[in-house]
């Protein structure tokens, strides 16, 4: 009897310890906690970069934006699909919008390859899981990679609901056709993805994909500025985001 009482005492001490570490966890957890779910807290920063993809204008067989992006960022070109790295790619509509797709899709989307790249989510799951803050959200809304910090655990790849992250499975330098010496390559063993051209934004240039597109499919701008071009487009068009039910709040919008 006495033994059991002693044990219960010890057990309660242990559970107090447990409870306090849980509250510590709450304190540390990022802003994707309950507070962020209950209030829409997106407006606190002046800038939140975003993109509108107007798929009505996009030509099926044109890949100028993909080529431009992969050229300026030294993205390698591997033949083996297992090694391939992509910052921006095309995939069929039903694959991008599985929850929007139904049995009778309209002719203009049914067989159309859709552009897809990192959504720079407001509540990025990849950032939430990264154990070293190698992927992190900047005040301007860009979900950035710090290649110096990445340990290559690939937790972010399991977490990204959009499949927009690529790992460097092997050395990439030999597979870069025309190396751009003003932009770094990546070491094998780190994860990479679209960075909304933050290196170009720093020089007041638009993202490479936006600049090169002859059809003006892509509009880049500040989602937190109600008078920006991107907000005007969103005001006058019904736009969609990928998998809105997940609550990640993408900054990339599609006009179908």
């Amino acid at each position, binding site marked *: 009897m006495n033994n059991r009482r002693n044990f219960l005492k010890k057990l309660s001490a242990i559970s107090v310890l447990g409870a306090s570490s849980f509250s510590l966890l709450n304190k540390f957890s990022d802003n994707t906690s309950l507070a962020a779910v209950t209030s829409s807290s997106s407006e606190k920063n002046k800038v939140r970069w975003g993109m509108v993809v107007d798929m009505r204008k996009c030509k099926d067989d044109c890949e100028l934006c993909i080529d431009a992006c992969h050229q300026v960022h030294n993205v390698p070109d591997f033949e083996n699909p297992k090694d391939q790295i992509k910052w921006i790619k095309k995939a069929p509509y039903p694959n991008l919008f599985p929850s929007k797709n139904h049995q009778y899709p309209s002719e203009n989307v049914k067989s159309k390859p859709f552009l897809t790249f990192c959504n720079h989510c407001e509540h990025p799951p990849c950032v939430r899981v990264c154990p070293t803050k190698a992927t992190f959200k*900047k005040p301007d809304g860009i979900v*950035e990679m710090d290649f*110096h910090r990445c340990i290559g655990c690939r937790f972010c790849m399991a977490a990204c609901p959009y499949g927009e992250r690529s790992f460097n499975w092997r050395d990439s330098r030999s597979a870069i056709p025309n*190396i751009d*010496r*003003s932009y*770094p*390559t990546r*070491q094998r063993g780190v994860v990479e993805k679209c960075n909304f051209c933050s290196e170009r934004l*720093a020089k007041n240039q638009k993202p490479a994909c936006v600049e090169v597109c002859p059809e003006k499919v892509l509009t880049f701008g500040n989602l937190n500025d109600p008078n920006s071009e991107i907000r005007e487009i969103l005001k006058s068009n019904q736009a969609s985001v990928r998998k809105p039910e997940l609550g990640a709040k993408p900054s990339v919008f599609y006009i179908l």
Partner: protein
Amino acid sequence: MKIYDSGKIGLGLIFFIALVTFPFWVSIGGNKQMPELKMPDSAHECVESKEFMRTNHMRLLNQWRDSVVRENNYIYVSSTGKSYVKSLTKTCLNCHSSKEEFCERCHTYASVRPYCWSCHLESE
């Protein structure tokens, strides 16, 4: 006090000491000449004093790296009040135009292998 197996212990200790001092005695008689670094022809002052740079360039570069990548902060204001773009390839190598004759000579001598060049590229 009697030590058991003193012979074996002694041998083991000698082997251990030889092993941990390996880097010292293996380089006995090697070339001790400090490497000659090629200084820039045109520029005469660095972002900070020569003494500071000699001991702290790696820390400064790490700071630059973190503030550019993580804080979007591209401008370095030196202790003399001058502004520089925080960039290894664009600022440092602009004056120190040959990394072989500047960076690498010293790094090879000191046997350090920074991984900057696994990703960053010298402009041609």
